């Protein structure tokens, strides 16, 4: 096998944290190489170094045996390295063509679009998929956006494709198409690095795999010499036992906490995003909402929490009509909201932990006497919650934005669950979190369920929905495609409802 790329002794520190600790990585020509590890294991950091987004503190990179300096993505692209990021690097308001044209140095200076359009059509015919080069990117689905990214890499004549968690946003069908495409690319002699934490994907498509743990390399190994258990051991360092769901009851009360009737809500673009939806959630029940993002889940949640106007229909909490009554009033009914975009909606990153913790109760005794805040009480309270919810933070005075994703999420849960809610609205509560934080958050939600909370759980992670929910509603194109009891649900069935089959 021909060695295309070698990274030797790569070290990268962010402040006190060592994200990559003397990592060696090798890539052959024409292979699909998995880069496996938990969130925070240093996979993305390593690849960002290869792509020139980060400068390593130590270490060397060789391509075809020659030492190279990669100081910026520009250098990486010149060396034939392309990266498809988890958050697509696409310009939403520009067309597919313009996105592909961006950064292509060898196109015509005048009318670059004409040439690119031809290349996109050739590529999509060759590999047999459809894409309209003239639509703005914001109109595309996640899978289509990803294809645009791959076309971009291909048009730049990349020899090394880095894909960062490429299947997170995809439906099962789109994932199959992606893997088919990657195999085509492998036949062309292109090398693919697949960053992932999903063992199935590695077993499915990779030739070799490199496992990282806590910023260090565990090893590189041929796929046909390992099985999933071996890889899990390498990833986590020990056999991890996932809790069986039988430990939790799936029974719930008859009392209805949330009643939604014929709800219609419009999107930002003024189109109906939620269409005549009706459902109930009972005391002690978790209702999961499955669906590919962008099918009305966000608008539904915003309507229930009062952030978006209800066009038609009604929402009742414990029998009281709360349609269009305003967010504060709704939250005061005992609604906890764990929003999707935790950094943007969940916390105020520049304010301290204690201030974030009292965001919902700053105006109430004992934190405030009506005019002034009592910081000694606030600080005591914050300390207590920080230890109870196992938030790892230096102290309660540091800005919330300096915490990691998992700790920010725990901070939000601490604030929201401490109001003793009757209804919890949780939107993608574990997205992008490592397995330990995910487990902690699942346990918190299940405990609240046992205490009698009604929980609306929106997630794209089908396994999470299957593990937690009592019933699962599948949203597609603004409607509910069916509500399935968990003991009769299968991932395959939900998966096909999600894509509207």
């Amino acid at each position: 096998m021909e060695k295309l790329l070698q990274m030797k002794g790569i070290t990268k520190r962010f402040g006190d944290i060592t994200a990559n600790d003397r990592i060696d990585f090798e890539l052959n020509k024409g292979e699909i190489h998995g880069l496996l590890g938990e969130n925070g294991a240093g996979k993305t950091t390593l690849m960002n170094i290869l792509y020139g987004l980060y400068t390593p503190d130590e270490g060397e990179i060789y391509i075809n045996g020659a030492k190279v300096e990669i100081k910026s993505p520009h250098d990486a692209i010149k060396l034939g390295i392309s990266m498809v990021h988890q958050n697509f690097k696409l310009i939403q308001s520009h067309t597919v063509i313009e996105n592909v044209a961006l950064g292509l140095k060898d196109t015509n200076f005048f009318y670059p679009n004409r040439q690119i359009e031809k290349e996109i059509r050739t590529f999509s015919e060759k590999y047999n998929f459809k894409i309209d080069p003239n639509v703005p990117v914001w109109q595309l689905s996640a899978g289509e956006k990803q294809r645009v990214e791959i076309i971009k890499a291909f048009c730049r004549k990349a020899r090394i494709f880095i894909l960062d968690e490429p299947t997170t946003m995809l439906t099962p069908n789109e994932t199959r198409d992606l893997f088919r495409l990657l195999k085509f690319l492998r036949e062309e002699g292109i090398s693919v690095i697949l960053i992932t934490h999903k063992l199935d994907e590695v077993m499915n498509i990779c030739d070799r795999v490199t496992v990282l743990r806590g910023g260090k390399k565990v090893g590189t190994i041929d796929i046909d010499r390992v099985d999933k258990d071996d890889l899990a051991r390498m990833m986590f360092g020990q056999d991890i036992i996932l809790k069986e769901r039988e430990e939790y009851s799936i029974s719930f009360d008859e009392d209805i906490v949330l009643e939604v009737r014929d709800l219609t809500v419009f999107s930002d673009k003024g189109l109906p995003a939620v269409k005549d939806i009706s459902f109930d959630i009972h005391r002690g029940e978790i209702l999961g909402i499955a669906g590919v993002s962008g099918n009305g889940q966000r608008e539904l949640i915003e309507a229930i929490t009062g952030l978006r106007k209800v066009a038609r229909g009604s929402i009742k909490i414990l029998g009281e009509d709360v349609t269009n009554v305003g967010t504060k009033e709704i939250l005061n009914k005992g609604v906890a909201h764990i929003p999707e975009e935790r950094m943007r909606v969940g916390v105020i990153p520049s304010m301290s932990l204690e201030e974030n913790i009292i965001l919902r109760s700053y105006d109430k005794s004992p934190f405030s006497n009506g005019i002034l805040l009592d910081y000694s009480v606030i600080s005591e309270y914050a300390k207590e919650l920080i230890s109870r919810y196992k938030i790892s933070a230096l102290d309660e005075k540091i800005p919330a934005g300096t915490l990691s994703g998992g700790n920010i999420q725990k901070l939000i849960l601490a604030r929201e669950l401490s109001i003793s809610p009757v209804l919890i609205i949780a939107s993608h509560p574990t997205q992008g979190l490592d397995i330990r934080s995910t487990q902690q958050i699942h346990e918190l939600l299940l405990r609240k369920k046992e205490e009698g909370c009604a929980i609306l759980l929106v997630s794209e992670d089908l396994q999470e929905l299957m593990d937690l929910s009592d019933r699962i509603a599948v949203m597609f194109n603004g409607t509910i495609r069916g509500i399935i009891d968990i003991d009769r649900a299968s991932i395959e069935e939900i998966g096909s409802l999600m894509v509207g089959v």
Partner: protein
Amino acid sequence: MNFIIEILKATIPAGTPLLLGALGEIYVERSGILNLGVEGMMIMGAISAFGITTMTSNVWLGILTSAVVGGGMALVHAFNSITLKTNQTLSGLALTMLGLGLSGLIGKKYVGVPLPNKLHNFPIYGLKNIPFIGPILFDQDPLVYVSYALTFIFWFFLFNTRFGIELRSVGESPEVADSAGIDVSKIQYLAVFIGGVMAGLGGAYLSVVYAPAWIEGMTAGMGWIVLAITIFSLWRPERAIFGSYLFGGIRVLQYKLQPFGISPNLLNMLPFIFTILVLMLAAKEISRKRISAPSSLGIPYFREKLL
């Protein structure tokens, strides 16, 4: 009929400084940088063009100087907002204050001085005989023709070249442009510089062609109107023409309506009343067409964020 032609013919020179400034500011804002220093760069362009023309009797040399001075001032703003990543609003305002003060100081000795040489109208043979539009569009001074050409060039480059895609991408999302291997700073520096050059030219047009004279504070808020036109044109060069000539027309009306006994104070308010109207209209159109300002307008770009 002749009265209408006369008004429209006067409208174009009155709108030309605005058009030049707006074309530049469109590029600046398309790159994600907000430069509120247009007023300052315009007036520095005006005084430098006037001064150099008076000294050398060469109008074109004066105009060229204004471009260099405008561009040079813009580079100060570029350094502040791109390299130092300071607050763009403050830096731009400072540039305006600096320009207004400095031009007054330099211009003391030029107040009331007649310009030794000026640009004469240069009717274009053939085209000027087209009924109605001929005398309006093609019986103007050479710099007006240059402004026509620049409008086309600015439009063409923005939408039909690789540079245009890069410029628009940088303003929409510097992260994406950066990861596509675009030198974000370079594009932004270039755009801000172009903006300064154009504002300088706009000022020069005012002092050596339109007036032609040096009066302290002669831009009289035109720099701010340029910023309004930039929004009104939805950041599209070809639409800047309409906005600029609309305000040019209002300026002409100010003079033409004076003999009818309307208070000059009221007439002086006209451009600014229209500025508010135009911004309201633009806001409506922006929401209807779902277009928006370049997404990263005014936000400094840092590449390596901490964890």
